[in-house]
């Protein structure tokens, strides 16, 4: 292989999404994260002899929403059994869709407009959760294992992308955008850290300009977007080094070790299971009719891309790169409703976006609980000069802690009455009089000193003065 070969990555992602249903996929047990082990179980999700699965209609509906959001064709589908022995698998087979998935084809557009093809988005059941006890906690060294079947039978949708991505950044953007879509559809809370969204990456490399795929490796244990990006870059570099060193890449499943920052082999293609898929005889075919599909499509709210476009429109022509980033952040966090409410209340969009993407985003769980009208009232108050920026942030923090409230009343409680015009004028005059040398330098054009005077006035007024009004008064005195 000559030295001047440039390589490109070929990346496809498989994303498992736990559906936010009330109950499990095939039984009436509660679907909840973090409960006491083995409390949400019954004969069906424990796979007891004689038990049978009954499909959860809410799960089907959420899966259809995902398919609709990804522009998939919703097809008549069937379930199959994927057979393999593992202690977290109570029946020693997993009920999954195989050759006839519910959602076929589709695409996802990244925020920069790059389109990633969707192969399929099918339904399946989750397994139980194994905890290895003793030794290092790694599977091989453990003395024994405990199984929690609360997760057994939790509904999943597996979303398989086409191998369309070419960089770690694109893969991260895809996972992030997909996460936003899953949350927007109400299908999932999208929490990677709790395993609600799990990402596997298929990575291969090939010389730029060629069309044939290289041998791919599947990387597992990617628990964050950061891991996803790092693992892809590591894996691509590993494969390139192998090929340039005259070796070949083996098709295998590899495990990402976040602390070591590298992937290692889990099992080779030869060791892979023969899953012996066959149609699940305990379930009937699933073929949502046109009225059901239409009801699902009608019940869906706007997707992240639509909501970003709405914010851009609210900002007018002037959305800067920084504001674009803020827009992406508030939509990702689901805080855009706050901004839109402020805009509807005729508050400035840029100020609302700044408060949402900084102060609210820092405590976004509380932000999601914040009544939009409270936020809108706060931004309006600040924009009208009723609160300084510093005061506004303090009131917002109190609102986040309290879960809302009337910002004007809170400001009053906190002693944040705005200064009367006369008080401001005299406060500025006092400060100017106290610092004659600095004032001379400012008047002579040393703009750095403006900040000095603003800070001094704020200090003198216990932060009650509005920074913008102080600047205006300073300019008036200089003129």
């Amino acid at each position: 292989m000559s030295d001047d070969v440039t390589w490109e990555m070929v990346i496809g992602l498989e994303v498992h999404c736990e559906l936010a249903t009330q109950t499990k996929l095939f039984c009436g047990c509660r679907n909840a994260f973090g409960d006491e082990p083995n409390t949400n179980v019954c004969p069906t999700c424990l796979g007891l002899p004689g038990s049978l699965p009954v499909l959860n209609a809410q799960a089907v509906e959420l899966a259809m929403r995902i398919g609709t959001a990804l522009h998939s064709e919703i097809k008549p589908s069937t379930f199959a059994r994927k057979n393999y022995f593992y202690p977290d698998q109570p029946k020693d087979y997993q009920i999954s869709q195989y050759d006839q998935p519910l959602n076929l084809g589709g695409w996802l557009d990244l925020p920069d407009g790059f389109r990633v093809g969707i192969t399929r988005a099918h339904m399946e059941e989750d397994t139980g959760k194994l905890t290895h006890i003793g030794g290092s906690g790694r599977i091989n060294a453990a003395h024994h294992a405990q199984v929690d079947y609360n997760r057994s039978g939790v509904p999943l949708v597996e979303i398989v992308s086409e191998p369309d991505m070419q960089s770690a950044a694109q893969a991260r953007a895809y996972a992030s955008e997909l996460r936003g879509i899953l949350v927007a559809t109400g299908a999932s809370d999208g929490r990677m850290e709790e395993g609600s969204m799990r990402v596997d990456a298929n990575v291969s490399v090939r010389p730029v300009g060629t069309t044939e795929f290289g041998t791919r490796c599947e990387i597992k244990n990617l628990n964050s977007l950061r891991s996803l990006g790092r693992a892809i870059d590591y894996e691509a570099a590993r494969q390139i080094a192998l090929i340039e060193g005259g070796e070949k890449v083996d098709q295998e499943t590899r495990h990402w070790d976040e602390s070591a920052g590298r992937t290692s082999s889990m099992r080779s293609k030869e060791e892979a299971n023969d899953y012996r898929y066959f149609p699940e005889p305990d379930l009937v075919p699933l073929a949502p009719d046109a009225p059901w599909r239409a009801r699902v499509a009608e019940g869906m709210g706007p997707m992240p891309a639509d909501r970003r476009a709405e914010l851009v429109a609210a900002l007018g022509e002037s959305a800067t790169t920084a504001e674009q980033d803020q827009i992406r952040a508030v939509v990702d966090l689901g805080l855009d409703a706050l901004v839109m409410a402020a805009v509807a209340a005729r508050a400035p969009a840029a100020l609302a976006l700044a408060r949402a993407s900084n102060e609210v985003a820092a405590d976004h769980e509380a932000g999601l609980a914040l009544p939009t009208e409270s936020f809108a009232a706060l931004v309006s108050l600040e924009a009208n000069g009723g609160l300084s920026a510093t005061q506004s942030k303090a009131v917002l923090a109190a609102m986040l802690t309290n879960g809302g409230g009337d910002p004007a009343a809170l400001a009053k409680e906190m002693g944040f009455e705005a200064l009367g015009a006369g008080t401001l004028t005299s406060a500025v005059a006092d400060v100017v009089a106290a610092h004659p040398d600095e004032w001379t330098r400012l008047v002579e054009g040393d703009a750095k000193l403006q900040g000095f005077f603003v800070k001094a006035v704020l200090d003198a007024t216990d932060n009650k003065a509005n920074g913008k009004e102080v600047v205006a008064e300073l300019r008036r005195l200089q003129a």
Partner: protein
Amino acid sequence: MTTAGDADVHAFLLLLRDEALAQADAVDAAVAQGRDPGPLAGVPVALKDNLCTRGVPTTCGSKILDGWHPPYDATVVEQLRAAGAIALGKTNMDEFAMGSSTENSAFGPTRNPRDTDRVPGGSSGGSAAAVAAGFTPISLGSDTGGSIRQPAALCGVVGMKPTYGRVSRYGLVAFASSLDQIGPFATTVDDAALLFDVLAGHDPLDSTSLQAPSPSTAPNVGDGVEGVRVGLCADLIEGCAPDVAAQVYAAAEALAAAGAKIDEIRVPEFAYGLSAYYLIAPAEASSNLARYDGVRYGLRVDADDAAAMNTATRTAGFGAEVKRRIMLGTYALSAGYYDAYYAQAQRVRTMVMQAFDRAYLSVDVLLGATAPTTAFALGAKIDDPMAMYMNDVCTIPSNLSGHPAISVPFGVGTDGLPVGIQVLAPALEEALLFRVAAAVEAAAPK
């Protein structure tokens, strides 16, 4: 409750003495309080031991479920209790319903009450023998390839397999899910219909349970067969012993005398049913029986790691026939063999269904033998799986199609042992099936 003679027959694996007495008290109390005690009030019933009974061992005739007490009742068990029936006990069976002689039970064979040197048939041999011996007037079995009808024939009782989906499978430990169906044993067609009526109906816990209404069949059992077109099916007779075949022809003549119209009919596709069945049923079984891995319940044989424990448990817990079918089914589903075996068998299954549809264009029911011979001697076929599998050749087509079928005693063979006549009907036509069966029963030599 009498168990006299069961030491010889071994129909029961477990007697539910206390539970039966308590249930009888409950029926008495209902009567005393003027409440409706149900259509089967006080009637004893025996349950095949693959029907889950809450808190009561359910073994499937296997060591692998050692110590397991289901935490729930099968839907049919609840239906029987609600109808006032009294569950007497759990009956012996071929392990996981795999067999045609009840010799594959891990707890020893059941013997035929008509001749205890003979097998009772299987896999529901215990339930058939319990009725034949007079221990109980009715019992439940399950039929995957003939496991109700064949032992009914060999024991000289009535045994019926309903339309697939008519009776809930919830709580029936699965052998082959797309073929399994629970059904009644009784001494008369009337009683079988009465029991069927209690079991039939939609169950939301079984996705394959039919939504179609299940009108009562019992009131019309005696309505006769005037004008019914009966297809005398050579493909369900030709492979049988001459003494069995002779009784089928005699039954056809009796039906003609009762007003039915007899037509000879060929359905050559039935010949392929056995081969298809012995791929589809083991394939499903290999998956259904994977869960017996020693992790959660039943037998566990400890070993160094989980995989070795699975192997040790399954090696010790399963009998030879179960292992044979798991291996056969695993092979049939394996990559590279799936199309040639499992998928091909499904195509044959479709072909058999279409053959039934064609036959039912010209006749209302089909008539043939249930089993190729009368009861054979214990041990005669146990070492020859193919000879044993041939017992199911006449019963399997109805499992593949999901249609109802019934076996009715009619005369005896040259050995003096009972012969079973099989009546087959289209899906959901149980009422017609019982009417024709009752006409056969009425004409049977006394």
